[in-house]
């Protein structure tokens, strides 16, 4: 077995996360899809680090993690604020700018 299999796994996880973002309506589940995509990228970075014998890939994975944490904090705060105003966490109900 080659290390490429890890990259295949990362690709499949990334595509599943992207599909989740496209299909689901609950904003929180959409966010989980984004998290899945970021995690898949981390797996690819770690695999590349091992492939090239260079630990920089793992350092980049740390940066991705930090950015993901910041993104989750802000995103969930926005979801909570919208939920307070509209009593709904569905991305379909947020159409204030329409009309």
């Amino acid at each position, binding site marked *: 077995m080659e290390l490429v299999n890890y990259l295949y796994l990362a690709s499949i996880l990334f*595509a599943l996360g992207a599909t989740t973002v496209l299909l689901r*309506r609950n904003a929180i589940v959409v966010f989980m899809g984004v998290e899945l995509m970021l995690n898949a990228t981390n797996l690819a970075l770690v695999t590349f680090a091992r492939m090239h*014998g260079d630990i920089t890939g793992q350092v980049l994975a740390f940066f991705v993690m930090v950015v993901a944490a910041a993104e989750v904090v*802000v995103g969930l705060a926005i979801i*909570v604020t919208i939920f307070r105003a509209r009593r709904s966490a569905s991305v379909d109900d947020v159409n204030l700018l329409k009309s």
Partner: protein
Amino acid sequence: MSGGEEVLFWTLAPLMVIAAAGLLVVRRAVHAAVCIVFVMIGLAVLYVAQEAPFLGIVQVVVYTGAVMMLFLFVLMLVGVDAADSLTETIRGQRWIGLLLGAGLAAVLLGVVAQATFPPSVGLVEANAVTNPVALARVLLQHYVIAMEVVGILLVTAALAGLVLTHRRRLGKKPTQRALAEAKVALLPTGRQLTPLPAPGVYAQNNAMDTPALDPQGRPLEHSVPRVLRIRGQQRSASELLTAEGLLVQRIQVDRPAPDQNEEEG
């Protein structure tokens, strides 16, 4: 890649893909959270197997520990029961989305399959001074500025979280007098001034789902909590009363009346 790692990979990878696909299928947000926690822990195990033990531990602490807990907290705030609506606002969105997802998967897998990778070097040499030390050397020698910027980003995000969820009072705080006057003003619409009656207490039953009886013996619907009434989980008072009446009759049949006993004795 050793045989043990191969077994680990082929055990974990299908399970992780199934859990990730569960994110698409599952109706409730909490179940989706459980699915993604499984994927994240699986990834942590794979990181440890891929000679990145520190990253694996950070994955468990940061992702499954902090980020998913944050998700669950927000789910509690928003309401755990909230299930996704199945009505499509954009026609054919499901099929278009699935098609695009499958296309993305095909493109990514195709790129990985087409690319030629160098023979893997492994991290034995890079990890010679232990993994955390090697990471720290790269991070603090080549990426110091990036790390500082990321620190500022985190502080900004924490501040943004505070600011965004801060609730500003839009009107004046209502006084006790205003509240009382509002209650009296609502009287003509059928509201009452006194607190709602408590649920009923019967000989054999003392629960939230049974209505109390008024002085005329009629059940008081509004003595049962509103949530139970909406869910249709309340019990009717007449049912309970007949059940208790039957019980009393059965006891009287089983046992002769005490008055008769006294007369005989």
